[in-house]
C-alpha cells in the first residue's frame, strides 16, 4: 500500500548521516576544494557508517543481507548534502563490492568482500567512463579479448576515483562489441598488473577534493578468473542502473542543500528595504528549487523501490539520473544567481556547487546502491 514513510532503520541512517554532513563535512568542504586534499578524518568517520558492511552477508565479513537500493539512496542523499567529493570518495568502493556481491563467483566474494568490510577504508576503484565526448556505457571502446587462459584488456578510462590508491581496479570492458549493454563485462585487475598505466591525477572543473585518474589498458593480461561472475559474466545494465541511482541520489542531496541555502539567503538579505525573497522573481526561483528537489527524489525513490523488488528498473533509473543531472545544474546555477555577485566568489558555497553540479551528466559507475 502506498507510503512515503521511511522505515525506522532508514530514518536512523538518515539522521546519523545528516548530522555527519552538517557538523563535519560541510565545514571543511571549501578548504578541501581549494587544497584538493580529502580529509582523512572524514573518510575515517564516513567509513564507520559501515555502508558496505551493513549490506554484505556475515559469511563474507559483513552483517547484512545485500544492498537495499532504497536505504542506499536515502543515505547517499544525506552524504552529498554535505559535499559531493566526500560522498563519492567514501562510496567509491561500493561499485567493486556490490558488483562482486551481486554478480561475482564465490571465489571472488571470498577474495574481495571481507576487506571491503574491514575496519579501515580500503580504496577500490571502478573504471567505466572513457575520455571522449561521445562516451556511452552501451558502446564502450575498452575491450576484453579472450586469448587462451587470459583476457587481453585494451582501452582508456577516465574519471577513475582513487585509482592510484586501490589494490584492485574493477574495469568495465566489452567482450562483444555491438552487443550493447549485454556485451559489457567487468574485470578485477590487481594493482601493478603489467600494461595497466595509471596516469597523473586528473584536473576537473569540480570534484577537486576527489582524486580521479586516467587509466590506460595497453593489452593488459588478466586470468579468466578475473572476469566477474565467471563464464556467465554480469548483468551490466543492472549494475549500471544501480550506480545511476547512487549518483542521482547524490544530486538530490546537493539540490536540497542549494535550495535551503538560497531560501535562507533570500530571507535574510535585505535590498530595497525588504528581504530579496519578497520579490516574486527570487521567490519563484526558490519555490521551483524545492519543488524540483522533491520531484527528483520521488523519481529516485520509485526506481530504487523497483530495484529492491527485483523488478525491471533500468528505464526508471535512467529517467531519474538524467532528470537529476539536469535539475541539479539548474538548481545550483540558481543558487549562484540568487546571491548575485556574492554567489560568484569563493567565499560562499554556491560557486562550488555550480562546478560540482555539472559533473552529474558525465558521472557513471562511480558509486552504487
Amino acid at each position: 500500500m502506498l507510503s512515503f514513510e521511511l522505515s525506522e532503520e532508514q530514518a536512523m541512517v538518515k539522521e546519523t548521516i545528516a548530522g555527519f554532513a552538517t557538523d563535519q563535512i560541510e565545514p571543511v568542504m571549501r578548504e578541501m576544494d581549494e587544497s584538493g586534499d580529502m580529509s582523512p578524518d572524514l573518510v575515517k568517520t564516513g567509513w564507520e557508517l559501515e555502508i558496505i558492511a551493513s549490506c554484505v552477508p556475515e559469511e563474507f565479513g559483513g552483517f547484512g543481507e545485500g544492498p537495499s537500493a532504497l536505504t542506499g539512496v536515502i543515505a547517499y542523499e544525506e552524504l552529498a548534502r554535505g559535499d559531493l567529493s566526500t560522498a563519492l570518495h567514501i562510496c567509491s568502493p561500493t561499485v567493486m563490492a556490490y558488483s562482486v556481491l551481486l554478480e561475482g563467483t564465490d571465489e571472488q566474494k571470498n577474495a574481495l568482500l571481507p576487506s571491503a568490510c574491514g575496519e579501515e577504508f580500503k580504496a577500490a576503484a571502478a573504471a567505466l567512463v572513457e575520455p571522449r565526448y561521445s562516451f556511452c556505457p552501451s558502446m564502450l571502446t575498452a575491450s576484453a579479448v579472450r586469448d587462451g587462459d587470459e583476457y587481453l584488456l585494451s582501452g582508456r578510462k577516465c574519471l577513475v576515483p582513487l585509482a592510484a590508491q586501490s589494490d584492485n581496479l574493477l574495469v568495465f570492458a566489452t567482450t562483444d562489441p555491438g552487443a550493447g549493454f549485454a556485451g559489457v563485462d567487468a574485470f578485477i585487475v590487481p594493482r601493478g598488473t603489467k600494461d595497466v598505466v595509471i596516469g597523473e591525477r586528473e584536473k576537473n572543473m569540480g570534484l577537486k577534493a576527489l582524486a580521479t585518474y586516467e587509466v590506460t589498458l595497453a593489452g593488459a593480461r588478466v586470468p579468466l578468473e578475473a572476469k566477474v561472475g565467471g563464464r556467465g559474466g554480469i548483468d551490466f545494465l543492472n549494475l549500471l542502473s544501480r550506480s545511476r541511482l547512487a549518483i542521482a541520489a547524490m544530486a538530490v542531496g546537493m539540490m536540497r542543500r542549494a535550495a535551503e541555502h538560497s531560501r535562507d539567503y533570500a530571507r535574510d538579505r535585505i535590498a530595497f528595504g525588504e528581504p530579496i525573497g519578497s520579490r516574486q522573481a527570487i521567490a519563484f526561483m526558490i519555490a521551483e528549487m524545492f519543488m524540483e528537489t522533491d520531484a527528483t527524489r520521488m523519481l529516485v525513490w520509485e526506481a530504487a523501490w523497483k530495484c529492491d523488488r527485483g523488478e525491471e528498473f533500468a528505464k526508471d533509473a535512467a529517467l531519474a539520473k538524467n532528470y537529476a543531472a539536469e535539475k541539479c545544474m539548474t538548481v545550483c546555477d540558481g543558487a549562484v544567481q540568487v546571491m548575485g555577485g556574492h554567489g560568484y566568489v569563493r567565499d560562499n558555497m554556491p560557486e562550488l556547487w555550480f562546478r560540482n553540479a555539472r559533473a552529474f551528466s558525465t558521472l557513471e559507475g562511480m558509486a552504487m546502491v
Partner: protein
Amino acid sequence: MIDFELSPKLKATQKMLRGFAEQAMRPQARKYDEEEHEKPWDLITMVHSFMKGGVGGSMGGGGEKKDEGGVKKRRENNLATAVTVEEIFWGDAGIGLAFPGQGLGGAAVQATGTPEQKEQFLARFSGEKPVWGAMAITEPEAGSDTANLRTTAAKDGSEWVLNGEKIFVTSGKSSLESSDGFVVVWATVDAKAGRAGIKPFIVEHGTPGMEITKIEDKLGIRCSDTVSLSFMDCRIPEGNILGSAEVADPKKAGDKGFKGVMATFDATRPLVAAMSLGVGRAALDLLKQVLADEGLEVRYAIAPNRMTAIERDIMDMEANLKAARLLTWRAVWMLDNGDRNSLEASMAKAKAGLAVTLITQKCVELMGPLGYSRSLLLEKWMRDAKINDIFEGTGQIQTLIIARNVLGFGRDKLK
C-alpha cells in the same frame, strides 16, 4: 516503509476504469468536443450506475478519523479518487469533468461543513439519480483575489440574502438545472472584515433570485459546462451557511471561513493534478504507439546525448509526467493520513499543470500534421490540458503558495 504499490482493490479499479475509458469514453470524445454544451447522458448514466458518489469521490474527505485509539488508521479514499480521476481523464477530460458527483461544492462541504450539514447535503450524491455539486468563488472583478469578493450575504430574520455575480462555475448548469444539486457560494458577510468576512453558503437548485447568466464557450474541456451566476436578493435558510452559526460572526470566527476556501483547495488541488496526469499520459501513450508501430523503440538507458531528438523529448516528457504523478500521490497520501498538505498539494498542482501543458504541446509538435489535425484526439488533449495550469489557482498562484510556505512569508511579506 516506502511503498509505491497500489492496493489490489485500487489496481482492480484502475484496470476496470481503463477499459471503460478506452471503450466507452474515447469513441465519444470528439463528438462532445464538437457539439459543445451537449451532455453525454449515456455515459453519465453508465458511470453513475457503477460509481455512486461520482468519479471525484469524496474529495477532501480525508483526515477526520485520523486516529482511532492512537493507532493511525490507513485510509486511501483520496488516493482512490486520484487514481480514478487519472484513468477517467485519460479517457477524456471534457467528459470526465461532466460526470456527476459532489465536485468542488461537495469538497467545500467536506472541508467546512458540520457533520449534520455533510449528512444533509452530501447524501444526495449516492442516490439513484445523478447529481452535481458546484462551487462559486471567482467574480468578474477578482480572479485569484479570493479575499476581495463583492458578493454579499446579509442576515434578514432567519434567512441569508445573497447579492452578486459569480463566473467560471464548473458544472453550474449540471448542478442547478440538470439535477437536484447545489452550489456553494463564497460571499462576504462584512466587507470591511476582509478575509474574516468571507463565508461559504449552500444555495440549492431552483432557489429564486439565482440565475445562470452565461455559459462559456471554451478552448477545451467543452463537454463541461462553465457558467456565470447572478444573485439578486437570493434568499436561503440561515442553516445554509457552512460550519455552524457562530461562523457567521467575523469577530468570533476570525478568518475561519476563508481558511475554508484554502482547506477546500488543499484537498482538491491534487485532484486537478490527477486530471492533468490523465491527459498528459493519453498524449504520450499515443505518440509512443505511433513510434512503436514504426518499429522505433526508445533507448532510455543510453547516454542522453547519443539519442535522437525525439527519443530525448520522450524521455524528458516521461520523467516529468512520472515526477508529477509521484508528487500527486504524495499529496493525496498525506490527505488520507490527515496531515496538512498545503505545500505538497501546490507542488503537485504546479508541477502537473505545467508538465502536461508542455507535454501535450510537444506531442502535437512531434506528430506534425497528424498532431495538428482534428482527425486525431491529440490536438484536443492539448486544448484540454491547458485548463490544468489555470483553474483552481494558476501555476503562478501555486508557485506563490509554495514560496510562502518555503520562505515562511505571509501575504504581507510576499505579495
